């Protein structure tokens, strides 16, 4: 099959291929897909060829935790062989072979770097796995990545010491990929650091969750002595959680020492403050002299005792003591005195009324 035919095949059957990629396997596929080895029949079902899956996963940055990094041993051995044969025969074929192997190794470095980067990102953001499983996966990846250090250094040294100067085209290729290669090798250290940090943090998180669960169970069974002691011992520096009032104010009743301190502060503060009082313009009223007139009731009573009386009210009305009053005032004052006098024992009421409408009372 030519490459262009392969691309046409993929385009023609893109829906089946996509479904198989997403669902894992299909019950039926077109015969030409099986013929091309893109699909393989396993256990009555058709699955996509692993090579295609790896290729697709790699491009789509979907790396499984179980990815096998492999190593560079095969390429390394082939390079040694090719170099030896070139040195013996000076056949250009072996240069081509060496160039191809260098490129393979470069691709491996490149893909590995991407895979590890993606895996690390996935680990750091994975919240779906059980935390224990996540830690196990992280530890596995760390182990695999650590193994790469030695392998990387071996290849790097081989490129620098054994291949450089062998042939100009090899030097050109090595020069063009040299900086990137160095970057990928250095990245391994960084990945290892990040993985270690991730594992430490995740293990800490796992421990924290376990501790929380343990404490929660103790609260439930009311075995909280340690917690209570800790809270009481550190109360001075712990969140003051008194239930807020409806107005959401923290009720605090300061003790004597605090009040004394505050008063002292305020006292000192207020002493320094001079507030000018604005003058009020209030009109001052002159004191009015009030005339106090007192009626001497005793004198009136003495008069009544001496001469008796047929109508006490008229007697009072005409008495000298009330001379100063006129008209309505005279009537009112006379009536007041009348009401005082009629309480005496010597007073007898008649059935008649005088021309002021007042009941006639006689002094007996």
């Amino acid at each position, binding site marked *: 099959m030519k490459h262009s035919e392969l691309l046409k095949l993929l385009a023609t059957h893109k829906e089946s291929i996509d479904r198989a990629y997403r669902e894992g396997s299909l019950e039926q596929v077109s015969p030409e897909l099986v013929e091309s080895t893109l699909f393989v029949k396993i256990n009555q079902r058709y699955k996509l060829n692993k090579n295609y899956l790896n290729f697709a996963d790699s491009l789509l940055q979907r790396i499984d935790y179980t990815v096998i990094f492999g190593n560079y041993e095969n390429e390394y051995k082939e390079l040694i062989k090719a170099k030896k044969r070139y040195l013996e025969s000076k056949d250009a074929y072996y240069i081509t072979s060496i160039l191809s192997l260098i490129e393979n190794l470069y691709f491996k470095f490149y893909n590995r770097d991407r895979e590890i980067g993606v895996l690390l990102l996935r680990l750091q953001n994975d*919240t779906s796995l059980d935390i224990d499983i996540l830690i196990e996966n992280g530890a596995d990846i760390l182990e695999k990545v650590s193994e790469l250090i030695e392998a990387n250094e071996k290849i790097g040294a081989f490129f620098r010491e054994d291949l450089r100067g062998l042939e100009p085209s090899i030097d050109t290729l090595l020069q063009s990929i040299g900086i990137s290669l160095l970057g990928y090798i250095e990245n391994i250290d960084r990945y290892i650091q990040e993985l270690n940090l991730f594992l430490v943090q995740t293990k800490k998180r*796992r421990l*924290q969750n376990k501790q929380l669960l343990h404490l929660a169970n103790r*609260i439930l069974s009311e075995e909280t002595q*340690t*917690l209570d002691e800790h809270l009481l011992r550190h109360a001075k520096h712990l*969140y*003051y959680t008194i239930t*807020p009032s409806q107005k959401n104010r*923290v009720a605090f009743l300061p003790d004597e020492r605090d009040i004394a301190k505050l008063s002292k502060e305020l006292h000192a503060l207020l002493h320094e403050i001079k507030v000018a009082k604005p003058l009020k313009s209030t009109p001052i009223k002159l004191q009015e002299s009030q005339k106090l007139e007192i009626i001497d009731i005793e004198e009136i009573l003495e008069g009544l005792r001496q001469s008796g009386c047929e109508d006490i009210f008229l007697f009072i009305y005409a008495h000298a003591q009330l001379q100063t009053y006129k008209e309505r005032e005279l009537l009112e004052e006379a009536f007041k005195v009348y009401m005082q006098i009629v309480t005496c024992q010597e007073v007898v009421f008649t059935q008649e009324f005088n021309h002021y409408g007042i009941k006639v009372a006689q002094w007996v």
Partner: protein
Amino acid sequence: MGLDEVFKVLSKGILISLNSQKYSDEAKFLMIEENFEELSKIMKKLGFILNGENGYFYLSKKEKMNDAELQAFLNNHKNILLCIAILKQLFPYLERGSLVKQTDFIVQLKQKEDSLLEQKFEYIFKTKDLKDIVERFFDLLEKNYILEKKENDSKDEYLVLSALDYYLKIVQSTVA
């Protein structure tokens, strides 16, 4: 934003988190050392201590608490610790800054089928009604400044505030 405004918030017994959207101004104000020091001095005179650690601020009481205050202090801490334990059991990766949805909470709850979980809910809320439990659970954590609604009109999504670490610190100190 001034000292008086920040004091008004703190005096309501609010735990101010740096990643809170509601109290971001107050948090930023307190992040400035001079402001923190000045307010701290005033708080000391009033009988409080201003604490700032790990991205959150709160007041603690300088002097001894009376019996009622002590009981509220202990019970509040225990209830919140229980709620956080439940949250972490259902969302093991939850941390400050995480988003948690009420609907996801219900899904996780139903999947767990843990009788101890039910006991914990009954301990705090004295009910077995799921709908009631979920509403009151989120309400309690929101009122105690551990969770904050992501958007005012959304009842489903909550942001985990930095103040979560205050309680995790207590767990670390009390559980071996």
